[in-house]
């Protein structure tokens, strides 16, 4: 099919446009249109995966429309080895996300509309080969989050404490508006950094084209790279939850409604990591090599610090949110190793973590809808009343702690290997310890929620997953096992891109 990539990007947007003309009262049609839009993109992604020539590698299925010829901006879409798994991931998450939020009652039409626009942006980022359009899609993907969290989110209280307690006088820390505003402001400030770096590179490359291939062909001066790379790292890295700019993520993920958490932790954080690798490291290879010590050092902090923070949380959603901070640290660590193994691991971890955290948030949403609490201390024995949820939650936990046979193992182990064979072998040590701490907090949560004597009182009549709720756990759970047992389904794609990109860095590191 011609213009396959364009259709993948456009399908959710078209569905969103159709939603505009539907009346608010048309509950089922709204959901069906959204589902069709999501399914179309997912099906397209599967076709891309099947059609992509894994042996040849490189950019494939390219298509181009000129947008602003005078500045050299064009809508250029193509997919590479990294794009394929990430397209699949986005497709899976949006389909399951739409189904997981089947029960949204408040302003359903607007909810689905924003969700679909956001996903269009995500698909766009993964396939655009023009830096300007890349940025444009990036912003489209980030901004709807403000409304999605601000309107459909949930608030909770954070007690006023600590040396900066005075800030509570001005805003309600922990509120959904607070979470939405913090997320948006932090990401926007970082977008500004990206914008600066982008124009810096564009100007030095002749000011004629934003085409990534053109920029890649330019060898930027060391001074430019040394300015551009940190800007890109912080700019994109904030979305990937890089310490200490990760603090939007726990509050954002905890406040967001189920499907939004799934998308945000599952896919959007990957946009950040993808940006750092695809734009930052590939365009500024020399600076990437000379800043690697910092990127990797901070990533190690992320892994361990995120895991330790997660271990101290009492709110289920915060546990999962902090685990995302920790696991995205693994991605950034893999990226910082600047080895094929590490990069393959990093991209694999993007996929594995996306699936895993999507599963986590889907299940948490399911539990929350029934129990109306997220405080794990109040739960207990839920395994008796919702055995399937317990099983899938355990599966997600296992992938999270990197158990062989799940996708998380392949990803984490490759990153550890990459770190061990890279320039800073010691990175592997805290990273592995982080995995052990992960085992502690996920299994403790699992035990507290699902194990123990059968629940009594208000929780005695909770029910297991029903109808559309089954889809997310089954699809995502199966994916975790499938890609854990046979990683070559994805690694063959990823490796061909990693080695191409890394060839730019290797001679200089």
């Amino acid at each position, binding site marked *: 099919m011609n213009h396959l990539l364009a259709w993948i990007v456009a399908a959710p947007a078209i569905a969103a446009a159709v939603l505009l003309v539907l009346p608010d009262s048309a509950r089922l049609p709204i959901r069906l249109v959204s589902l069709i839009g999501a399914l179309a993109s997912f099906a397209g992604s599967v076709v891309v995966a099947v059609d992509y020539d894994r042996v040849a590698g490189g950019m494939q299925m390219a298509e181009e429309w000129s947008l602003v010829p005078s500045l050299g901006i064009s809508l250029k879409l193509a997919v590479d080895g990294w794009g394929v798994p990430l397209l699949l991931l986005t497709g899976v998450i949006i389909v399951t996300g739409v189904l997981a939020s089947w029960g949204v009652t408040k302003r359903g039409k607007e909810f689905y509309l924003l969700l679909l626009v956001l996903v269009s942006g995500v698909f766009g980022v993964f396939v655009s080969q023009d830096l300007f359009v890349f940025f444009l899609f990036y912003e489209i993907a980030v901004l709807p989050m403000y409304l999605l969290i601000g309107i459909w989110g949930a608030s909770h209280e954070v007690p006023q404490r600590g040396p900066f307690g005075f800030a509570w006088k001005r*805003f309600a820390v922990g509120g959904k508006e607070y979470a939405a505003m913090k997320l948006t402001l932090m990401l926007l400030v970082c977008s500004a950094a990206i914008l600066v770096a982008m124009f810096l590179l564009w100007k030095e490359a002749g000011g004629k084209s934003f085409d990534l291939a053109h920029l890649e062909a330019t060898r930027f001066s060391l001074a430019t790279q040394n300015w551009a790379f940190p800007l890109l790292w912080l700019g994109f890295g904030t979305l990937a939850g890089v310490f200490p700019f990760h603090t939007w993520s726990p509050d954002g993920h905890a406040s967001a409604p189920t499907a939004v958490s799934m998308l945000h932790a599952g896919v959007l954080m990957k946009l950040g990591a993808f940006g750092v690798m695809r734009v930052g490291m590939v365009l500024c290879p020399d600076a990437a090599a000379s800043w690697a010590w910092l990127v990797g050092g901070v990533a190690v902090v992320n892994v361990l610090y995120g895991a330790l923070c997660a271990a101290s949380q009492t709110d289920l959603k915060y546990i999962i949110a902090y685990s995302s901070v920790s696991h995205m640290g693994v991605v950034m660590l893999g990226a910082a190793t600047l080895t094929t*193994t590490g990069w393959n691991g990093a991209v694999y971890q993007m996929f594995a973590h996306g699936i895993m955290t999507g599963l986590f948030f889907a299940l948490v949403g399911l539990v929350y809808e029934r129990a109306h609490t997220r405080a794990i201390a109040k739960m207990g024995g839920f395994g008796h009343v919702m055995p399937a949820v317990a099983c899938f939650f355990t599966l997600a936990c296992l992938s999270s702690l990197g158990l062989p046979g799940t996708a998380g193992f392949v990803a984490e182990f490759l990153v550890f290997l990459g770190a*061990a064979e890279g320039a800073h072998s010691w990175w592997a040590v805290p990273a592995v310890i982080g995995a052990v701490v992960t085992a502690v907090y996920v299994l*403790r949560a699992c035990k507290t929620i699902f*194990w123990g004597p059968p629940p009594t009182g208000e929780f005695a009549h909770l029910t297991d997953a029903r109808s559309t709720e089954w889809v997310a756990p089954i699809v995502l759970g199966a994916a975790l096992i499938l890609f854990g047992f046979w990683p070559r389904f994805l690694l063959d794609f990823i490796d061909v891109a990693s080695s191409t990109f890394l060839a730019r860095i290797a001679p200089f590191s």
Partner: protein
Amino acid sequence: MSTLQSWAALAVLAPLAAALLCVVLPPLRKAGKPAAALCLLSSLVSAGSALYLLTQHETGSVSRTTIPWIVFGGKAIASIGVHVDATSVVMLVVVTMVALCVQIFSTAYMHDEKPSSYGRYFTLHALFLFSMNTLVVAPNLMQLFAGWELVGLTSYLLIGFWFQKPSAAKASVKAFWMTKLADMGFVFALLVLFVATRGFEWSARLSTETATLVTALLFLAVVGKSAQFPLHVWLPDAMEGPTPVSALLHAATMVAAGVFLIVRADPLFAQAPATRDVMLWIGSGTALFAACLALVQTDIKKVLAYSTCSQLGYMVAALGAGSAFAGFFHLGTHAFFKALLFLGAGSVIHAVHSNELADMGGLRKKMPWTALTFGLGALSLAGVPGLAGFFSKDHVLSELEGRAGWIPWALLMLTSFLTAFYMGRVLIKAFGGAPSAKAHHAHESGGAMLLPLFVLAVPAVGAGFFGGKLAEWSGAEYHLHLGLTPIVASCLALGGIFAALAVFGRGKTAPFTSVLEGLDRASAVDRTWAGLYRHVLLGVSAVMGFIDRYVVDGLMNAIGYSTIESGASVRRLQTGRIHDYAMAVVVGALLIVLWGVLR
């Protein structure tokens, strides 16, 4: 793939197929009995292929098939497959036979479970058998690690099988965490090995430093998995699981995986004498320490659990002495008699509905067949001459002669005496004397439970005679000679039993009992780990959580706050009074003029 390798693959994949079917077809699993039948069938296939492999095995034959699992740029980083040699074939037979016996036993033992739980139980057993066989036939350390972690998972799920019991839930996560902590060693060992050799082969040639590092890290994992001091604390707690599970996982096979790993990686360990010295001490120390604690346990399963720790200590010590064969031989015989003992204990527990030795007594008349088979297992464990345990234990002890100033040898000799002594105690308390209140209504178990006992009793008695063949296959020296060690060991074993008769047969307590009970109650190691978990890990994490919420995020809030505040303070400049604005204009104009003049 040759025929032999296909049979090995079948032994691995049959249980996987059964487990997968039960997982993806919830109605099948929830029906209970059909799922159990399917899993039993798969175990039967697995055991059959293993036995076939055993009959076909020829001395020195080694063959393997691998398929690339993780491939970069056309080169396999890691592969999976099957490796068929004497070690894997013998281990496969031990594992599948014990598993089959335990599963048959379970059909009766777990009879009262709901159908859905019954199905879940057997699904987990099939999953365990798949994982364990994956580990056993692994062609490299990578696959061995995968199996290693998967058996840890099934252990976690099976200990917590009765997840409504808080104690079981606690024990299962404890087991997982302790072994996971130790497994860091395995991960690091794999990383170091990969960096040094770009592969995960156990036959790699390494420099002494690297070999010492790799083996020390591997041994750390073994300490966790095989419950050696100081990571043994999870094993007694793991007895919260159903007794057949304790028999299979926490006595016969899974905990022996650590020993199996050292046997497998013997070429690596041979390059690291320093690690072997540590193993020698830890093994013999654990053997004695655990035997002391076994002496004062009141729960029959806990006696057996500490006894398992102790026997694993023998194996580790033998491997530390450099004799892979002695360790492996003892692993095999121990698997049979310990599984027999646990199943016998299960039979007793099933009859009296209690784990406490005090609730038993006089069962030799009520349950003669259980008493007979349990007695044979106990005597084999005690090392009574002629039984399987005697041969393997004797060989371990012979290998230790003269090592490290005879101290490990002496420790293990003392342990031999204690082993006979505490097993004598169990025999007397459970089967001798007069029945307690609960034991009055006990009656002999049914056929499904007795059959595995009889089957296991055969190797528990006779497996020792297989030692010569095993030695030939392993390329080791093995012949029984009437020397110092066998004589002393036999005397100590018999002496231990008679001592037990003399002490417990007359209702007395052993000397030092109060000291040992104090040691048991103090459980210093357990408390240390609990304290490390509670105060160090959770303490640090609480501090981190506070820092993140109130310092790191607080700083972000402070930035937002100061932005709002500075806006608020600048806002006051807008008084709304025209005169102020006019004044500002005039002052501004004057300043401009002043600037122009002064410039």
